[in-house]
């Protein structure tokens, strides 16, 4: 492949208030390549692509595309120049039809005399959807009728139907199931083969190595290096990202440890209408039990069901002593902890201090005199500080608001809360979602520590590697039911799990 430069990033800097997000970053992106952009949280990847796609205004430096300097003013402007983006979270607008979403900002081609020809627009959208092979999506339906995966597919069409020169894929894969990823990879390859460029952002290094041609590494807003994927290993990338050797074990190292026979929690015939159906299993003392599957397989609902947070749940969740768990306060009172996949809405009280977040479920034991409701603020502060430090939360103090923290640190605050509560059964739904390697490693180590202390952990994850690396036992879910169970062993690989998932 000839190496023709598509985009020159020249001396780009950007500050947010007092934070330097990017400092004098320069590198080149070629035509016909998948160019990965990697770095830990806060390294400036998204800031850079957001400026390229007109979401953030530029500050200093230049983007030169095909020899011409560009200044995208907004996303539509960027689209017109041939730059599109697929984002991590939902990028389609509720309340609009599929066709309206696809052609958002580009309706003028269907407008005559001020009137929009909706039929023509729908027909064009349907043609595109068929061309992409997404026949099950209909142009005239509201996007709200489609699930997360399908809405991502709609975004793929929206971002690529006009054959843009550069497509940014910003951490889209973390939110997708294996199936959705495959679909996305297919289109990334197609875009590359057409001679266009994909800028690919992901935290998943094996995915990066597998799918990209060139990799640029950023660290703390500074350009580190650009390498060819075929010349490097995952270890090399980690070293470039973190700036030093990652020492110690990433996942658990032990194999062949016997699981205790003591059952701490039994789930019997649990059904949540429309989501999960007749799920039964036992959780043992000191065990890490994994749940894997596609994101729509119902595995996320299993966590909620155990925590008493599902609507209309049928069946039983019973502790070893015979207590039935039916509500969240009851679950917490009986030493069950839960962290949600939807961290910002369900795990953390976002506009509140680290301190209040950590002490919330433990307030009853932080009173001046036992049984009386008067709080002991000195004890509360000490409590919050102790557990925030234990989880090594990066913070200015426990009074800092969690909304100012990075994803990884938010997750650490959530874990600090439940470790402070001394929960015996911990349900972790996607604990490392969107979190960088270093914090991931901290979380894995914490899980291993808790396991050795005799606590039982349920780990629900879409990342098969971490399930294989961390769990004593993995239950695979498919279409709301249990489709298989695998014990921990050295020879386990992703493929055997995927077979059970799809």
């Amino acid at each position, binding site marked *: 492949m000839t190496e023709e430069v598509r985009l020159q990033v020249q001396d780009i800097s950007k500050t947010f208030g007092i934070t330097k997000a990017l400092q004098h970053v320069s590198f080149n992106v070629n035509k016909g390549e998948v160019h990965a952009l990697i770095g830990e949280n806060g390294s400036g990847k998204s800031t850079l692509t957001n400026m390229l796609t007109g979401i953030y205004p530029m500050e200093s430096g230049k983007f030169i595309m095909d020899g011409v300097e560009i200044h995208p003013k907004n996303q539509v402007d960027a689209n017109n120049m041939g730059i599109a983006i697929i984002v991590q979270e939902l990028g389609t607008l509720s309340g609009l039809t599929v066709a309206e979403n696809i052609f958002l900002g580009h309706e003028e081609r269907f407008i005559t005399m001020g009137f929009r020809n909706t039929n023509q627009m729908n027909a064009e959208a349907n043609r595109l959807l068929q061309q992409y092979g997404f026949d099950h999506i209909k142009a005239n339906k509201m996007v709200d009728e489609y699930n997360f995966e399908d809405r991502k597919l709609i975004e793929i069409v929206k971002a690529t139907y006009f054959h843009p020169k550069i497509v940014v894929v910003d951490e889209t894969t973390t939110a997708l199931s294996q199936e959705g990823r495959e679909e996305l990879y297919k289109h990334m390859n197609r875009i590359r083969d057409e001679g266009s460029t994909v800028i690919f952002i992901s935290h998943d290094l094996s995915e990066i190595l597998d799918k990209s041609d060139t990799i640029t590494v950023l660290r703390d807003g500074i350009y580190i290096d650009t390498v060819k994927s075929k010349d490097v290993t995952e270890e090399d990338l980690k070293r470039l990202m973190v700036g030093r050797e990652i020492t110690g074990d990433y996942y658990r190292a032990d194999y062949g440890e016997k699981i205790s026979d003591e059952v701490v929690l039994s789930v019997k015939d649990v059904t949540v209408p429309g989501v999960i159906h007749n799920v039964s299993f036992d959780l043992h003392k000191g065990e890490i039990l994994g749940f894997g599957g596609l994101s729509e397989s119902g595995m996320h609902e299993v966590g909620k069901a155990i925590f008493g947070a599902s609507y209309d749940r049928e069946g039983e969740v019973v502790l070893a002593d015979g207590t039935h768990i039916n509500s969240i306060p009851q679950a917490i009172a009986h030493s069950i902890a839960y962290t949600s996949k939807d961290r910002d*809405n369900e795990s953390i009280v*976002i*506009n509140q201090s680290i301190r209040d977040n950590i002490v919330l479920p433990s307030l009853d034991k932080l009173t001046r005199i036992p049984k009386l409701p008067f709080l002991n603020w000195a004890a509360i502060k000490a409590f919050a500080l102790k557990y925030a430090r234990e989880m090594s939360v990066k913070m200015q103090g426990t009074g800092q608001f969690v909304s100012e923290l990075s994803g990884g640190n938010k997750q650490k605050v959530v874990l600090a809360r439940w470790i402070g509560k001394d929960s015996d059964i911990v349900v972790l739904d996607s604990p490392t979602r969107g979190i960088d390697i270093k914090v991931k490693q901290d979380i894995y180590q914490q899980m291993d520590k808790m396991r050795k202390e005799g606590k039982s952990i349920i780990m629900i994850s879409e990342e098969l590697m971490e399930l294989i690396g961390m769990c004593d036992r993995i239950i695979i879910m498919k279409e709301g039911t249990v489709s298989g169970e695998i014990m921990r062993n050295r020879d386990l690989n992703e493929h055997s799990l995927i077979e059970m998932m799809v």
Partner: protein
Amino acid sequence: MTDKILTKEEQAVKAAKMKLIRSLLPIAGLIAVFILFNILTNGRMISHMHLALSQVYVTMIAAMGVFFIMTMGGLDFSQGSILGISAIVVCYVSNYSIPLSIVAGIIAGAAIGAVNGYFYVRRKIKSFIVTICTMFLFRGLIKYLTTEAPVAGSPYLVMMDSTEFKVMCTAIVIIIGYICFVHTKFGTYLKAIGAGEKAAMFSGIRTDMVKFWVYVLSGAITGFAAFISAIKVGSVTSSGGNQLETQILIALVLGGMPISGGAMARFGNCVVGSLLYVILSSGLTMMGFSTQMMQLIQGVIFLLFVFIFADRKSIHVIK
């Protein structure tokens, strides 16, 4: 790379400074407004202080209830109507027994609060819509009950009207409220609900129950304020409690209350805010402004304070 990058510590100092300004502004405003009006009225305000303060008791007590509601991210526009209905109940029952009339007023207020809470929590209607509806509904009822003549209370009622008594009542309510909000988990729970309701629920707070009972509590508190209001006048006319809800809202915002509630709410907001509002409005009256002019000035000040205190990051969570 010679640009200066602020360190974490410097950032923290800057954030702390902003926080300090926000927390000091209402108190500084209170002192400034007080001095300003004393100069403008040639000291008439300070010599008629009891007159100015006579309006503060009802506002401050009722504002505390709304403070709880706003902390958890709700709003309440029905306070004026609650006060009117409760005052009618107090006056009516006082003809039989005065202690009983206090209880009856509180129950009446709590009942309306329960109506608000029911529609807000169980029927999932936004709080400002529910309370605007109940505001009109009960305002209508007040007008109906007072069509023929004002509802008169027992003559003994007005005999209880003394500054000492009212100060004592207000102080007791405020102190109890303060202890509950700052020194029990009640306040922390309310702030958590205001700052992120779903996450609060997943931390084990029974959010629906708390929300319902806070509306009942706020109604009950205003029901008690109705007693204080009734002993001042001795009867209730069709305008009883009129516009109290706006006064409370302005008072809280003047006191530095973020309109979306949450963790930035401070108990001092309702105390300082009520004082500031009363001094402002009585100062304007003493200077001889017309009612219309006063409304205009209050509107401008209200907008200004909302502008300063609005927590723009979380403004979308008003329920």
